[in-house]
């Protein structure tokens, strides 16, 4: 019952909003270049389907690549930081600086540095910058949050650094890392779109660039269609990472437990 409601209630709300939107737009005869009705958006989606799908694929490819690189590099540097306070002290301020400088402001610089002929790489770097920091910061905290008594026990049993890292610190950091991945998954999407707004997508056209062009051409229905795809992509990324989190944590971590009894 409650499982059904969980999906039924938001779905019913969505249908109601779309119906109201459709009715009001038609009733007040709002011009399509101001606010298209859902049926107009659907028509735009089907009419431009191949183009939109190829744009989705271009964007998705870069998002996934940036996210994977951010995850790997974030975990790698967190491990380095956890091994050495000196390295952390030296590098952390620059990692913070990278994070707090608005990405929209750095994007043009990166595009120029990398060169317009390799715009894919520029998009990748920009998305990586946005997605990297939450993973680095959370994993660093997670690695340090290992139970100090367990740490003593590992030392008492003569555990090597590698054993402590693999058997104690990384499992302790896992809930932190997975939380950060959910944040960074969304951020890498935002990063790619922002980068496309600034730089375009070179020869290929991503969703961000499609939105920019549709807006300039006053193809507002097509813009909405692209927006819809973008939102769907964001939700899919979030759902996939939530599923990963559940798979890895549901047996033991408080956050993933369902209340029983």
């Amino acid at each position, binding site marked *: 019952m409650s499982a059904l409601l969980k999906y039924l209630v938001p779905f019913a709300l969505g249908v109601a909003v779309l119906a109201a939107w459709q009715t009001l737009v038609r009733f007040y005869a709002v011009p399509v270049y101001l606010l298209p009705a859902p049926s107009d958006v659907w028509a735009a989606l089907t009419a431009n389907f191949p183009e939109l799908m190829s744009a989705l694929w271009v964007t998705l490819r870069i998002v996934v690549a940036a996210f994977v690189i951010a995850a790997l590099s974030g975990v790698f540097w967190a491990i380095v930081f956890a091994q050495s306070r000196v390295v952390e002290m030296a590098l952390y301020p620059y990692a913070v600086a990278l994070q707090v400088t608005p990405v929209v402001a750095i994007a043009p610089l990166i595009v120029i540095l990398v060169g317009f002929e390799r715009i894919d790489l520029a998009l990748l770097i920009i998305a990586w910058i946005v997605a990297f920091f939450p993973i680095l910061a959370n994993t660093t905290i997670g690695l340090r949050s290992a139970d100090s*008594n*367990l740490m*003593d026990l590992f*030392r*008492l049993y003569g555990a090597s650094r590698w054993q402590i890292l693999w058997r104690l610190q990384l499992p302790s950091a*896992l809930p932190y890392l997975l939380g950060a991945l959910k944040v960074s998954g969304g951020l890498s999407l935002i990063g790619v779109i922002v980068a496309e707004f600034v730089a375009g997508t070179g020869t290929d056209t991503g969703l961000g660039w499609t939105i920019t062009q549709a807006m300039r051409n006053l193809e507002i229905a097509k813009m909405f269609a692209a927006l819809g795809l973008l939102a769907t992509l964001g939700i899919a990324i979030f759902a996939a990472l939530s599923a990963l989190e559940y798979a890895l944590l549901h047996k*033991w971590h408080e956050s993933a437990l369902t209340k029983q009894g």
Partner: protein
Amino acid sequence: MAPLLSLRGVSKTFSGGTQALGAVDLDVAEGEFLSLLGPSGCGKSTVLRLTAGLIAPTGGTVKFAAGKPETAFVFQEPTLMPWASALTNARLALDLEGVPRTEAEPRAAAALARVGLAGFEHAFPRELSGGMKMRVSIARAIAAKPKLLLMDEPFAALDELARQSLNDDLLKLWREDAMTVIFVTHSVYESAYLSTRVAVMSARPGRVAAEIALEQPAAREESYRLTPEFADAARRISAALKDKAA
């Protein structure tokens, strides 16, 4: 009994300037069940950590007669790895020593069975009660057959029933494995029931104020708590604690 270890003039001052231990002299013989008893803040746990080598003394020496023996530690909290099953937790010392899994697994399972947890090998810590978690913690400690078992108020957080049953099981393990146990507690009755010797400690700064040897029947069980010998032991320990630690 052969000497196992001796503490000579061991003192410890923490980096904040708190002097946890004055100068502690303490000898521990092989096969003893020694309780460290005293009010909180008297440095009982510090003595245990110094003995384990987890912290270094500020002054004095901790000497082992024949090199540092295989040592296990049980904390006040069960301190289990929440992501690992009871069996994997019990296997920890063996895994870290590089014992092959095919050999470590049956040994860890046997240790779990000895603390009454046969059938719970694949349970995760969150599925176990407080007393059962402490049993896993003890199984982890005995799985590698330590010569020296250090216990830091292991049963303080448990209810009376779980505590008494764990006391009996611990005595049984101690007898069967011929380990030396150093047991930190603030319960007079617990120390009277378990120990062959009690070192009463006093605070500010922490030191050993009195040592009481107890003549214990080799096999103690629940009925021992009702004997005059037990009452006498408890009275002597209590008197020493009041006298020296106040």
